[in-house]
């Protein structure tokens, strides 16, 4: 009886988020949307005039676009990790994050997926990268890590999308009871006539478990593949065996940070304090700290290998990274990723959301810089000293990158207003 009330309350509280949006929300939405518009225009400009409008130089032929790609794929990771892996570990605090995290995964992947296209010299023939039988009777080169990317990211996106959707089916059913108008219709369709019978729940449980199990290995595989884009090449500073674990850790690191960055304001804005408690934050913070330590360790290993490897090219590359013209970025990165998170050893700070927010944002910055530094510095000073060069981004690259952030947050804002932000059914389970 009183359970019923509780359930009703949960429904109300969470679905309250989907009430009519306030001014602030609309303003935010307008802002992010305009960013998207700017990005779009700049992309059109770039396609029309050629990649020359970007700041690429002769040695540095990959830069900010690929940085963004790796960054966003990284962001995407925590989603699966938090929902799938923690689900398998039966970690209860997951419930308060998983929906947000999954949404983040999907959106981040959407954004990430754009960058390989943006960075192509001839984006209009991107379909050459897709393996399909054409009249030309020629296939893609399955040896190329870029093709592995196409598959890895594609798979990952599909799976996480399905996972995201399946997780929401019962909530749609719940939501449709409160919604009206077109929204009700949509929810009705999306809920696939979910009635909540035992039989349904039994099947549902099986399916969800399976999907979780299926998604978990992807966490490792996808970013390993992405890291191989670099590790498989022979560029000094890229060609390292530790890249796969290093990148996966980094991905989870940045992803977790992004979750915190998103959930802290979310909780505040939609006062979900009783569903997202400080304990939850603390345990997430622990993940952050842990992955941070792994990342720092990788940094040390990288420089270590370069110095005792005795490979003149590798040494040159890392000397340049640490002391070259990009040294400020390098050291900022180390500060953000290795030093700042150490504060989280203090329990008080772990439970202090403002502190967490600051740390997480810094970590995001740091992780973006990490990718930038790895990509640009390694290319700028590789084998032949004659072609050593440098790189300065142009407004086009900056604008498009901002646009990508805009796109991500636009999608996210739309999400929080139109879909249940917390997994109602699971919260009910835990009542």
């Amino acid at each position, binding site marked *: 009886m009183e359970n019923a009330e509780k359930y009703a309350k949960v429904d109300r509280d969470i679905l309250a988020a989907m009430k009519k949006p306030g001014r602030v929300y609309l303003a935010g939405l307008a802002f992010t949307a305009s960013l998207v518009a700017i990005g779009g225009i700049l992309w059109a400009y770039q396609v029309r*005039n*050629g*990649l*020359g409008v970007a*700041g*690429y*130089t*002769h*040695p540095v*032929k*990959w830069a900010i676009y690929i940085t963004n790609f790796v960054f966003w794929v990284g962001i995407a990771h925590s989603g699966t990790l938090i929902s799938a892996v923690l689900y398998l570990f039966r970690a209860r605090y997951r419930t308060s994050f998983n929906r947000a995290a999954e949404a983040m995964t999907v959106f981040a992947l959407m954004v990430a997926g754009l960058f*390989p296209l943006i*960075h*192509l*010299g*001839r984006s209009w*023939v*991107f379909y*050459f*990268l897709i393996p399909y039988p054409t009249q030309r009777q*020629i*296939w*893609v*080169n399955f*040896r*190329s*890590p*870029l*093709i592995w990317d*196409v598959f890895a990211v594609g798979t990952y996106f599909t799976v996480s999308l399905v996972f995201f959707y399946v997780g929401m089916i019962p909530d749609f059913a719940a939501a449709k009871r409160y919604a009206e108008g077109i929204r009700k219709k949509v929810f009705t369709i999306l809920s696939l006539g979910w009635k909540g019978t035992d039989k349904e729940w039994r099947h549902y449980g099986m399916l969800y478990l399976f999907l979780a199990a299926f998604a978990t290995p992807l966490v490792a595989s996808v970013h390993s593949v992405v890291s191989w*884009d670099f590790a*498989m*090449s*022979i*560029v000094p500073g890229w060609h390292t065996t530790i890249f796969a674990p290093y990148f996966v850790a980094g991905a989870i690191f940045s992803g977790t940070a992004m979750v915190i960055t998103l959930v802290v304001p979310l909780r505040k804005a939609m006062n979900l304090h009783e569903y997202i408690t400080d304990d939850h934050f603390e345990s997430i913070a622990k993940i952050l700290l842990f992955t941070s330590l792994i990342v720092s360790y990788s940094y040390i290993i990288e420089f270590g290998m370069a110095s005792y490897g005795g490979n*003149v*090219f590798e040494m*040159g590359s890392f000397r340049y990274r640490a002391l070259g013209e990009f040294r400020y970025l390098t050291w900022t990165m180390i500060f953000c990723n290795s030093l700042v998170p150490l504060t989280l050893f203090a329990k008080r700070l772990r439970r202090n959301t403002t502190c967490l927010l600051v740390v997480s944002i810094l970590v995001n910055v740091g992780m973006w810089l990490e990718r930038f530094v790895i990509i640009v510095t390694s*290319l700028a*000073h*590789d*084998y*032949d*000293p*004659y*072609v*050593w*060069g440098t790189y300065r981004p142009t407004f086009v690259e900056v604008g498009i990158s901002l646009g990508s952030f805009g796109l991500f947050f636009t999608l996210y804002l739309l999400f929080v207003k139109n879909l249940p932000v917390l997994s109602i059914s699971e919260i009910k389970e835990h009542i």
Partner: protein
Amino acid sequence: MKRRDFLWLLGVVSGSTVMSACGSPNRSAKFTSYLLPPEEGVVPGEARFHPSTCTECPAGCGVLARVREGRPVKLEGIPGHPVSDGGLCVRGQSSLYRLYHPERLRGPMLRDGKTFRSIPWEEAFTRVSETLKSSREKGRKNLFLSCRTTGTLSRVADAACERLEIGRLPEYEVYSHSAVKEANALLFGERDVPHYRIEEADFLLTVGADLLETYVTPVAYTRKISTAQAGGDFLWYHVEPHMSLTGGNADRRFTVTPGRERLLLSFLLREVATRKAAQNGFPREILAALPPATAESVARDTGIPPESVKEVADRFLAAKRPLVIAGGIATESPGGVGTAAAAALIQYAVGAFPGRVDFAGRENYRNVGTLRDMEELSARMGRGEAGVVFLFRTNPVFSLPARLGFRENMKKAQLTVAMGEFLDETVREADLVLPLSHSLESWGDVEPRRGVMSLLQPVLPPLHDTLSDGDALLGLLGSASGKGPAGGYRDLLAAAWRKRLGEAGKAQFLEKGFVEEMLPKRPVSLDGRRAADTLRSSTSAEEVRKPVLFLVPSIRTFDGRSRILPLLSEIPDPLTTITYGPWISVSKETAARAGLRDRDEVTVASGDWKAVLPVKVQPGLPGEVFVVYRDAIPAPPIRTDPRTGGPVDTIEGVRITKTGKTIAIPILSGSFSQQGRGLIPDPVHLEEERRQKRWTLYPEHAHMEYQWAMAVDLGRCNGCAACVAACHIENNVPVVGKRDHLKGREMSWLRIEPFYEKGEVDFLPMLCQQCHYAPCETVCPVFAAYHNPEGLNVQVYKRCVGTRYCSNNCPYKVRRFNWWQHRWPEPMDRMLNPDVPAREVGVMEKCTFCIQRIRGGKDKAKDEGRKVRDGEFTTACAQSCPTGALTFGNILDKESKVYRLAHSERAYRVFETLGTVPSIHYLRGGKT
């Protein structure tokens, strides 16, 4: 005559040979049928070669113009040509850009206030002839100033001037070698530059003469030196006050205190005369005239370490057939004539005349005047004595010092008639502009050297409303004197040739493009007293005050005349790797002292003259010595040598002050040092690389018939960059401009990397290595970069999507990306090689060993049912190399030259540790 109709026809066709870019043509796509069957042996779509002569500089190298659909698309040297023997320098390769340059004069123009209005030729001629008449009545003198002209053209000019009572002035060249001529005149009564047979010497000492770059006939000298080096025991020492490409390539290079070259030479002369020439009647009074000197004193004065002075002397004396050449900057400084004279006397003393130094085949510089002549001309014009002044293919306003006031005085002439190809500084000032055809559009002949006649013949109809040099002169003559010779310049030439060579000879001349008459060697007689006076008179008054600025000719632009060729500003200067100049080269120590770094802006001042230039720190340059290329400074503040009347290109006591600003100039080299990466390795380092074993997971590439490979002999490569230009032209590599160069986005498929080790420079030509295990191929997602059955890393431009992964993964960074859609302004688009597509925006491009040539060669071989013969065809770069440093061939053929070289003990590959197994084998240089 027949070919011209044919050309005309093809001219019609060529317009319509451009096809639509999609499989099925749309209704507008047309193609044309000939009226007449093309003459025997002409096959559409096949290139034909027509011999002609390069006119980019006075040297007169023979060129074969490669013609497709009636348009010349490439220039190559004529093998066996007495001057260039198959070689062609960077300027020669680029001179197609002169032909197709969009800014060429399109027709005769008449001054109309500040601007010009175009007029028909007839009007131009009549106006000239009227003015000629009127000025004669006014009692003014009509004058004709031209660049160095030789052969029939020179005679025609003389004749015309005589008929029309025009004073033919001494010809004007910026580099007139007046000191050398003066010295030879004083000593032997031969006012000219002799023909040096370097190939017959076993020891060569060059003083200031930049043989490999611009001195008199650089390609010839380059060929001769490499022949001599190939011959085995040959040593080449170079003494210079600054740092030049030539010096960098000599076996030993000594930097001498500016203006003191004379002392070294006279010491050498004394040594030679006393020890060697005493017996063969060497005039005593000369010895008397020589200032007393010991190795130590000379070392003190010249700044060359004593042991080096001794070494030079000993080597020279030890040599059986020694040869010394003084010229260039050494003779264009105060006391230059003394230097030249000393050198000439040494030649005499060691009996180099007439074997190794011969006036029979002199370089035809006799009619070339001096700076003083120009002073007189300017003065005469200033005094208003000049009527009509013809300025024929010459640009004095740019190259003469401002103090002559040439520009202003031109105005005082009654009518200045400029004849040239471009609206350059001088033409802009003229009253009447008569556009001349490019040499590839006109008939003619040149005589670069006595006894050598080289053919000029049109390979395409004139692009614009221009006349060939001869026709223009004849036209003038005709309209002025009422009756010119019957027929055009072509008939006149034909007659002249028939007269000189006979029917058969003429035919052969037309076919081969040159004739060489064997002139008997001419011994010289030395006037001892005059010689002695000459030596005495070169006193220590002629000293050079430091800091000194040298104005030197550049291998890219010579005296500045080639600076309008866009390609040449794309090709880096070999020593500094700067593409878009200008700049001033500063020595390391000076830079250190003045706290100057690359790109710093400085003001260079001397007297009331000053210029603002960015700095480039140049290793190997002695302190207090600055170098600027001649093309960088219009109206340079050069003095006139009181004794020779020639120019003094050393500006003394210059003041260099740092402004604190910087000027962005594209310096392509990221580092002048190898950073210990063994691109040009020492043997030890090499061995350990060799010992590495490596294995692959991928299936081996099978090469059945052919595996193309190249050998690059670093010992022969002198960094002249001719190959770079050749590659550009052959492969339609676009000229991208300064903006992209500043971003390091140059497009050249082939680059020459200079690496400096303690003042010595080594050059490393770097092009696609065509790796056997190519890193670029495995990473391309769409097979745009793949390994073809003949061992090439082919790039399929239409398949490329532009991920640029291949370039990242290329350790040699030899792949170029099309950042923009590059366009060729009309009529430059006619220069494109139809066998190579113009790349689209957003695709990667690279060297594929001129795959179009490979295709052609295989096609021919297949027709004859055989395999390709070694050396049957070669890549554009290898073809252009004057020293034969590049060898291309099929390495599967055990007999081939490239196989032999690739298996020599000098052979190595760049970055062998990476296991890319390149098909390009470098042969370690090692200065002998």
